[in-house]
């Protein structure tokens, strides 16, 4: 039963992910006085891409054809570890937060490699920048994990959720709040949102993620786009459920699960709204200002760890 629910949760996340991206896009359009495409537009795009033929560069190797699957599968594997709806998951012991981070890095690694594969300047530029941002974001993630683990006494996501549920005061401790802020900045960088990367552009010398996947089309592009939206949803859900775990089901009664679904949707709407407002208000940073932003997040995370240690 537990395992069936776990798989159902993954399917739920997989199905919901494009909607989350579409919702943020739609909200952004509304905030900018545009009509915008409906929130469910990404589904049409996926269907369209899956139906198209794939155009592959003559220069590309077998890696180019394998990478979309590796990227998709590594992201999908993470959804088995993240408590979207209930905690602790039956697969909780298979991987902790560190494993989640490194599984996502696995996808980034292969995406950056295939950016170089067709031998265009755009792809190389994208992968160089993506790896730069990923490398500098890494310390913040590790420290945010440290801070969370310090409070919960474990790096496993299930324990973190249940521990915070059992001790509500911990959620408003300075360490928790600072770690949330740090991880929020990193989530923007890792999922290619403003002010680090612009998800809405295709022909700009400043793009990062879109430059890497420029050579992809058809089914490959569909897989990559889907895993990108899944990654976005994973980061939002981590922010929502690790720091504000209320609503996450701890038993498997239908009522609890229904509450969990509604709570998750509410939290995603709230976070999505926040990101849409942010993306409307701020401009993209110059690439060489990005390290400063990530430096800020690192300091926040360091403060988070120190304060949660001192106030323990």
């Amino acid at each position, binding site marked *: 039963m537990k395992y069936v629910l776990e798989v159902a949760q993954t399917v739920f996340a997989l199905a919901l992910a494009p909607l989350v991206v579409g919702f943020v896009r739609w909200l952004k359009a509304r905030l900018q006085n545009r009509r915008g495409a409906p929130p469910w537009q990404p589904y049409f795009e996926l269907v369209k891409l*899956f*139906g*198209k*033929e*794939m*155009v*592959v*560069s*003559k*220069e590309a*190797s077998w*890696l180019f054809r394998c990478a979309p699957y*590796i990227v998709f*599968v590594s992201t*999908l594997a993470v959804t088995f570890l993240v408590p979207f709806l209930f905690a602790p998951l039956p697969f*909780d*012991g*298979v*991987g*902790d937060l*560190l*494993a989640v981070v*490194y599984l996502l*890095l696995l996808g980034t*690694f292969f995406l*950056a*490699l295939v*950016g*170089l594969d*067709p*031998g265009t*300047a755009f*792809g*190389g*530029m994208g*992968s*160089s920048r993506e*790896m*730069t941002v*990923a*490398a*500098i974001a*890494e*310390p913040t*993630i*590790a*420290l945010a994990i*440290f801070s969370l*683990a310090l409070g919960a*006494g*474990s*790096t*496993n996501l299930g324990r973190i959720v249940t521990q915070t549920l059992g001790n509500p005061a911990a959620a408003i401790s300075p360490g928790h709040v600072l770690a949330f802020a740090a991880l929020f900045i990193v989530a923007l960088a890792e999922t290619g949102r403003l002010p680090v990367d612009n998800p809405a552009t295709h022909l700009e010398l400043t793009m990062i993620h879109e430059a890497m996947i*420029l*050579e992809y089309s058809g089914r490959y592009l569909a897989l990559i786009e889907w895993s990108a939206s899944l990654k976005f949803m994973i980061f939002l859900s981590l922010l929502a459920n690790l720091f504000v775990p209320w609503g996450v089901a701890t038993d498997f009664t239908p009522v609890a699960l229904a509450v969990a679904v509604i709570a998750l949707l509410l939290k995603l709407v709230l976070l999505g709204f926040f990101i849409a407002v942010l993306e409307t208000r701020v401009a993209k940073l110059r690439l*060489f200002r990005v*390290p400063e932003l990530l430096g800020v997040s*690192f300091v926040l*995370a*360091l403060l988070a760890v120190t304060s949660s240690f001192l106030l323990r």
Partner: protein
Amino acid sequence: MKTLFLAMFIAYGLGAFAALVGGRKSFGRWLVALGAVLGAGAGLALGATVIATGIPFTLFFPELLPLGGGLALRLDALGAFFLVVIGVGAIPAALYGAGYTAAYKDGRASLPLLGAMFNLFLLTMSLVTLADNVLTFLLMWEGMSLTSYFLVMTEAGEERTRNAGLWYIGMTHAGLGMLLAAFLLLAGGAGSGAFADLRASAASLTSGARDAVFVLAFLGFGSKAGIVPLHVWLPRAHPAAPSHVSALMSGVMIKMGIYGFLRVALDLMGGGPAWWGGLVLGVGVASALLGVLYALMEHDLKRLLAYHSVENVGIILIGIGTGLMFHRYGLMPLAALGFIGALYHVLNHATFKGLLFLGAGSVLHATHTRNMEEMGGLIKRMPWTALFFLIGAAAISALPPLNGFVSEWLIFQSLLGGVSIPVPEVVVLMPVAVGLLALTSGLAAACFVKAFGITFLALPRSPEAAHAHESPFSMRLGMALLALACVGLGVAPFAVVPVLGTILAGLGGLPDTRAEFTMNVFLQTPSAFGQMSPTLMALGLLLLLGLVPSVLWLLRLNRQRRLSDSWGCGRVGQTARMEYTATAFAEPLKRVFAEIYRPMKELTVDFHPESKYFVQSIEYRSEITPWFDQALYRPFLQSATFVAQQVRRLQAGSLHLYLLYIAIVLILLLIVARWL
């Protein structure tokens, strides 16, 4: 066990003999490899037997070296582990060498010398792990250093190689000097050179003497292991050696520094004050970060890998440093976790760094260049090498489910456990170490995207790369074995970690970890701080990797594929000159860490004499000189050269002058003797 030991000894000996007799012929080269493979296999079996039975193997020849207390050999579990590491690294390297050395038939190097030194190097290195008194240890240590020096000097015809050899021999002897001092201090207190006596008497030394021994041993063994700033010989010597030797030096020999340090600090002295651990941790973090930062800026494939060895030794030392700290505060399960992580990383690094050096050797073999900017497109011309190199690159970047991830996870967990230390001043160091270790692993991933992407992907950047060919079977076999080890050690830590626990049990009072925390299919840290299972993770990934394409296939989606040009912004006719280069790839990180690199930039623009709107040529040069070269070694080398030049005046080459010197000295001595 004695049979295995003798088999190891004889196989290496015969391998060396075969090299001297018939090393030039193809048959002789295979005999050299066979000797090394059999010797390493016997060593591996010997090590495994000692670990499995728990009974140390001893052999004592009092009549040899009677002044130093006899030639004493004793293999305990710790030594046996390192003997196994030697076997794991040496068997594939020797197989690979059988094919690789064929290129030396052109007379660039002496094949008999190379083959003989290769076997003797493996033999002396194996005996280091067996040594049981000071003299035996130092003899074997020096034997290992000298034989590896000859291996580095294989291509002695090149200026760069001779320079590298000079650096190596200089650094290794500076290290030996410190080791001599450390052992003299230790043995002085014991009155004997046997390790058992040193162990018994180490506690009775004054704390000042213990600290001195520790610092000297750390520096001495550190110079072999390649800690910053004593690592300067690594990026010079490792690329100069033939690639299968580089694999052994980088993957295995530098671990002997770790072995020696563990032997002295943990086993003989039984740990010490907290600052010992703190120093090791700090140096480990610095080595890890600086190693990977300089690796990023390197475009010579083998130098890049050598800098990564500095990084990985740093990671190992982070594990040992935290272990020593926990040991001091009596947190034994956590201490064991740190040491287990470090030992696991020792084994892992031997596999993936060996694999990467062998891969780099294949590339060098095929393109005759080590410069990444002249490579590209090799994945199509050397598919096997590319696949193996990719596995190694993913493993060293700590990507699951490969082996680098498991050991880094263990080290991360031991650092996170640092909050249990009762002293707040120490605990605040832990988050910094966690952050910098995470930065290191992120940068390593970036560096290996560069190394693999620029070398193997896209279009070839030179005619040599365009005409590259796949390596012969023996070389691919060597790489395949190590790639399998990378995967195996990654998915089956439940078989490795408990063994590491038993190896450590008893060293410096460490408990048997099997009673303290569980390490079955699920790796679980003490007091259940973290839990994960690389085995199940790998299984899940594999399952999904089969499932996703099958579902897409079942849905009967469009599967048409069309080959076309890469998109060049409307421009047709793509050439390799339009590709991203290694320099360009690393440029953003060079800017971000400009404070550390302090790059030298030089831009010269030639304008047309008539108008400066017409640029005739642009020349751009940028160079990065590591600061420790400038700050630490240059003043020292300059003063040494200065002194040498002053001394040279005495040595004018005239026999008469030398006779005069003798006469003057004689008279002076007579005067002095008269006076006294």
